[in-house]
């Protein structure tokens, strides 16, 4: 009988070399207060200067989210006092953001849902405050990071929707190369708002939830909140507009300490930055930086390569993997084979070595070659796995490795026959047992032959030769 409405506010760190408004390095994990200058520390007399790459990435995201792009985007000061915010105002956008009124299609379960985007705006991050007993420690390395805030309309219904949205959105920004989407390191952050109401009665009182540090928490927190609000409605209590924090240890949302006064951000135009009017070349660069959207790509992977939905889901997760996949297929490998290798052996090796597909020694061409060598009968699947190991260890082409390591499949029955004879001679008792009816011992002999061949003998040939020689 209730209807719930969820909207998300997502902040992403734009993957630029420097901060939004100064030339300091924008990099996570450096020693505290090393990437700072008078500008991002808010010293008297400093002025902001707009990072070209960051503003271009902002337009790219807005464009990818099908927004109306601003021909004259403006910067504003958002005023509030916070210890980790050096100027005690944040340079942000309000009246004329980079983009507004967009949408993104996402897959939730088996259906596709369109989520409207209210606006996309550029701003700067604050520093970090670490609480330590009766003191707080301030680190301003993050102060001034270029941030992009994406605000959705309240088009999502339950926690699972929000989780799916975040996953899709993360994939999108990684496809665009504008953000690594790492929620643990805070390069992607999410706040949510939820309201519920009787069906058909429109939006209810909005409750904001902060501190959602993973897409799992987003799901849990929103479902918790929907339940909490429904409970209140059941009891006839009014839901009050407030901001709550998700407590991940207790799995519940809790009211944030009550602010003494309502916020009034007093937005006004940033006098230190003139408005930005993108030129035609700038917009062309934005167009050029776009790529096929993940969902479109997934559908194409299914349609063009016959992958199942699950297989396409796996392959399209990372743009590089999808590119790799298509390149391997283009180089002659069969699509499903490429998928199988990527989703099992290659994945295992990547996990073991801690490398990413992008910077590991395996190229799409090498994988395609490896697959074709199996197809040609040059090597067995088993050898191929060994070759893959060597590719990772030695960064060489599969043929080179096979030549150097003599990893060539022996499928000539005469050659195998010789090995079999040696093995049979060495294990006469086993042969007798088999002849007497103990068929289980056959496996032992196969193993011995494979071992004697250095693993190079083709197993089907070994089996047929053995059968013939032992059982006649």
């Amino acid at each position: 009988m209730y209807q719930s409405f969820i909207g998300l506010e997502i902040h992403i760190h734009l993957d630029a070399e420097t901060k939004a408004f100064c030339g300091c390095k924008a990099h996570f994990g450096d020693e505290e207060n090393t990437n700072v200058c008078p500008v991002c520390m808010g010293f008297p007399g400093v002025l902001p200067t707009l990072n070209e790459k960051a503003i271009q990435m902002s337009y790219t995201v807005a464009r990818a989210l099908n927004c109306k792009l601003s021909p004259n985007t403006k910067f504003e000061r958002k005023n509030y006092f916070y210890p980790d915010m050096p100027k005690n105002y944040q340079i942000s956008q309000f009246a004329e953001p980079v983009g507004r009124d967009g949408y993104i299609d996402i897959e939730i379960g088996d259906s596709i849902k369109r989520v409207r985007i209210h606006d996309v705006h550029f701003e700067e991050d604050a520093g970090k405050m670490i609480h330590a007993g009766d003191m707080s420690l301030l680190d301003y390395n993050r102060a001034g990071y270029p941030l992009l805030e994406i605000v959705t309309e309240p088009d999502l219904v339950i926690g699972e929707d929000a989780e799916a949205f975040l996953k899709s959105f993360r994939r999108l920004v990684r496809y665009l190369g504008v953000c690594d989407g790492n929620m643990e390191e805070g390069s992607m952050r999410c706040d949510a708002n939820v309201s519920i109401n009787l069906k058909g009665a429109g939006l209810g009182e909005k409750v904001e939830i902060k501190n959602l540090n993973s897409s799992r928490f987003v799901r849990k927190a929103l479902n918790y909140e929907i339940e909490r609000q429904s409970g209140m409605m059941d009891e006839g209590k009014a839901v009050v507009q407030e901001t709550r924090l998700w407590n991940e240890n207790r799995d519940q949302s809790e009211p944030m300490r009550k602010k003494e006064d309502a916020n009034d951000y007093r937005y006004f135009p940033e006098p230190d930055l003139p408005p930005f009017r993108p030129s035609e070349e700038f917009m062309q660069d934005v167009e050029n930086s776009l790529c096929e959207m993940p969902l479109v790509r997934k559908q194409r992977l299914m349609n063009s390569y016959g992958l199942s939905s699950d297989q396409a889901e796996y392959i399209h997760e990372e743009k590089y993997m999808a590119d790799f996949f298509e390149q391997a297929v283009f180089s002659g490998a069969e699509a499903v084979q490429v998928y199988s290798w990527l989703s099992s052996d290659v994945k295992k090796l990547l996990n073991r070595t801690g490398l990413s597909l992008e910077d590991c020694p395996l190229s799409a061409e090498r994988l395609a070659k490896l697959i074709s060598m199996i197809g040609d009968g040059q090597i067995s699947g088993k050898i191929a796995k060994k070759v893959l190991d060597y590719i990772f260890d030695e960064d060489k082409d599969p043929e080179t490795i096979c030549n150097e390591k003599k990893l060539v499949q022996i499928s000539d029955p005469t050659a195998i026959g010789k090995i079999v004879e040696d093995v049979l001679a060495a294990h006469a008792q086993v042969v007798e047992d088999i002849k007497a009816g103990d068929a289980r011992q056959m496996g032992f002999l196969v193993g011995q032959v494979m071992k004697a061949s250095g693993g190079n003998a083709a197993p089907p040939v070994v089996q047929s030769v053995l059968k013939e020689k032992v059982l006649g």
Partner: protein
Amino acid sequence: MEISDLTVTATLASLVLDEAETQKLGDEVSRMLSYFEKMSEIDVDGLEPTTHALQKENRLRDDRRLSNEAQPDELLECAPDLEDRFILIPNVL
């Protein structure tokens, strides 16, 4: 201007006013605000607000690291309270 209005404004500005200041500054703020009322006499409908008097062109900075004459350590030295490289502030729980 009401006292409560002054208090809200002061809080937004992170100022605390003692009693004497509330009186004195309250009077002066009110005096200026009533002087500002003069602006209601002039009709400026249809005029664009001037936010940037003369700036016409785009200005952008290359996304390249800049060396700065001020070293991070020099900046930290300005802080009233430090612990190693952290700036320290009190926080009674």
